[in-house]
């Protein structure tokens, strides 16, 4: 009997408290142990974690690499796997390996198998792929069934990986197939936290609202942090408590967190519908626990899937240099433009071999494209040059030429004829590897729920003792 069937068979009803432990919002970047152990001591019925996001940028999706170090992923997997098997409760992990494409899922699955072998554990694992068939996405584009979210142009053919965000249905399929442990490819953040409560009959509005807050663990607290967070569902609401006693969930801190990373503060859109938070109520249970109710779920009439992709845009070389000379700083805008023009004359940008060179001046306009210049001239400025070219050789050539001409550029009133730049390291050009850009962040419309389910195939693996 799987961990979930055992839970479902004995479950007394939705008045009973159902405890969901959020182990991590970024599994593989280090689960704080004390709070996780405190959560396990509360005997949760479900352990869930999120492992990915689109937030770290296009590199991980484009390259197929994880943001987390494999050794840390093993550590975190060992913690959650041992606890889940000890308690015999479902373990659900979403967006495996940062971006949740095939190579990410395969790498995390291999690490999980090796951890299981080391711990001598036997269980049924389900992996759920989230890779979208390229021809299907192209057909959707031609049929006007692929709509961008915000300003982005679809570029399907050059994309290295295309993923879709799975919802609760894919996790439910895996649980029905007897999975004890689920490793999902790209999944919407809430799904692994919400699915078990929903399958046990808890109302979907509060369950998804709970998941939306819980997927960031203790970030919803005062002060916020990454410690494990416990949600207890009962009836039509739920309570929240950080497993670190120094973090308090307050009505205001939790209500404010519902806004986080969302363009719409009252509606959270999911693959299978949306949850409306406009009638949500947050009440203090004590100084560090909050009770939440009032969220309402609305099924969507038409199935759809959020698709994400990244494509390579060339090779990146970075230039790092500091400046303290006030004359150079005052003239830096004109100097940088002149150097870029000079390099373009020496290394022609052709249609076949376009390259770009951009500078940010930290101290002036590095972080923000400010509408107005600073009121006082900064004492020091850090120059960051970013060159992207079709190949490493060209990117290096452009960066080295730009750096050298910048170093010795003459300008009116120049005193520093020994050189304009202070290099913190040499070589001052760093090979930053292949560069990527997002090439899809779109909603793809589908005809049927079966078509949606087919996009997220579940594969079962019986993990046996001593057989990694």
């Amino acid at each position: 009997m799987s961990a979930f069937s055992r839970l479902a068979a004995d479950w007394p009803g939705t008045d009973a408290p159902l405890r969901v432990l959020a182990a991590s919002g970024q599994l593989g970047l280090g689960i704080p142990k004390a709070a996780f152990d405190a959560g396990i001591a509360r005997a949760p019925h479900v352990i869930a974690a999120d492992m990915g996001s689109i937030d770290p940028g296009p590199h991980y999706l484009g390259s197929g690499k994880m943001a987390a170090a494999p050794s840390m992923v093993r550590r975190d997997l060992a913690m959650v796997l041992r606890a889940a098997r000890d308690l015999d409760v479902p373990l659900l992990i979403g967006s495996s390996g940062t971006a949740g494409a095939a190579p990410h899922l395969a790498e995390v699955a291999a690490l999980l198998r090796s951890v299981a072998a080391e711990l001598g554990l036997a269980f049924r694992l389900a992996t759920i792929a989230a890779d979208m068939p390229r021809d299907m996405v192209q057909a959707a584009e031609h049929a006007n069934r692929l709509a961008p979210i915000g300003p982005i142009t679809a570029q399907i053919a050059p994309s290295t990986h295309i993923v879709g965000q799975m919802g609760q249905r894919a996790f439910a399929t895996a649980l029905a197939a007897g999975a004890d442990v689920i490793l999902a490819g790209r999944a919407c953040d809430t799904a692994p936290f919400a699915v078990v409560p929903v399958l046990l009959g808890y109302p979907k509005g509060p369950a998804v609202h709970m998941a939306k807050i819980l997927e960031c663990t203790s970030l919803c607290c005062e002060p916020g942090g990454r410690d494990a967070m416990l949600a207890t569902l009962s009836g039509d609401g739920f309570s929240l408590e950080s497993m670190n006693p120094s973090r308090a969930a307050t009505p205001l801190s939790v209500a404010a967190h519902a806004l986080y990373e969302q363009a719409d503060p009252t509606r959270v859109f999911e693959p299978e519908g949306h949850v409306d938070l406009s009638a949500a109520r947050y009440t203090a249970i004590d100084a560090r626990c909050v009770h939440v109710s009032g969220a309402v779920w609305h099924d969507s009439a038409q199935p759809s899937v959020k698709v994400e992709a990244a494509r390579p845009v060339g090779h990146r070389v970075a230039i790092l240099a500091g400046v303290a000379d006030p004359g150079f700083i005052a003239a830096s805008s004109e100097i940088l433009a002149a150097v870029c023009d000079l390099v373009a004359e020496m290394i022609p940008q052709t249609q076949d071999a376009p390259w770009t060179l951009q500078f940010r001046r930290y101290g002036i306009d590095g972080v923000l494209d400010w509408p107005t210049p600073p009121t006082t001239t900064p004492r020091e400025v850090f120059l960051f040059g970013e060159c992207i070219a079709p190949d490493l050789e060209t990117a290096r050539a452009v960066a080295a030429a730009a750096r050298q001409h910048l170093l010795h550029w003459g300008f009116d009133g120049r005193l520093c004829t020994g050189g304009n730049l202070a290099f913190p390291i040499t070589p001052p050009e760093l090979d930053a590897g292949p560069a990527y850009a997002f090439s899809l962040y779109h909603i793809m419309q589908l005809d049927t729920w079966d078509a949606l389910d087919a996009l997220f195939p579940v594969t079962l693996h019986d993990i046996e003792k001593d057989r990694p």
Partner: protein
Amino acid sequence: MMILSDLARVIRSKNAGPTLLTVDVLFADAPGFARGVAALTVAAVARCYARRPEDVRIIAVPSAHAVKIVLPRSVPAGAPGDRDAYGAQQHTPLLDLIV
């Protein structure tokens, strides 16, 4: 004269997906929220960021004493030339807004 960074308890920015930027301004209480809402007009925010008013969306959330601002990113997160992959430091043009 009071500025937003003296009045608000939290002024934070973050990506809402790779194409949008969201800035949340959270106030301690209802009077602070009322004063903040009055200052955070589309015209004022557009001026702070040198953006067109039609690119600025402002949503007040009285239950959380919060104002949410949504702006399109000038380039998608992490694309060549992007200055802030997570969008976490794009709140600063609002700090000195007179409230």
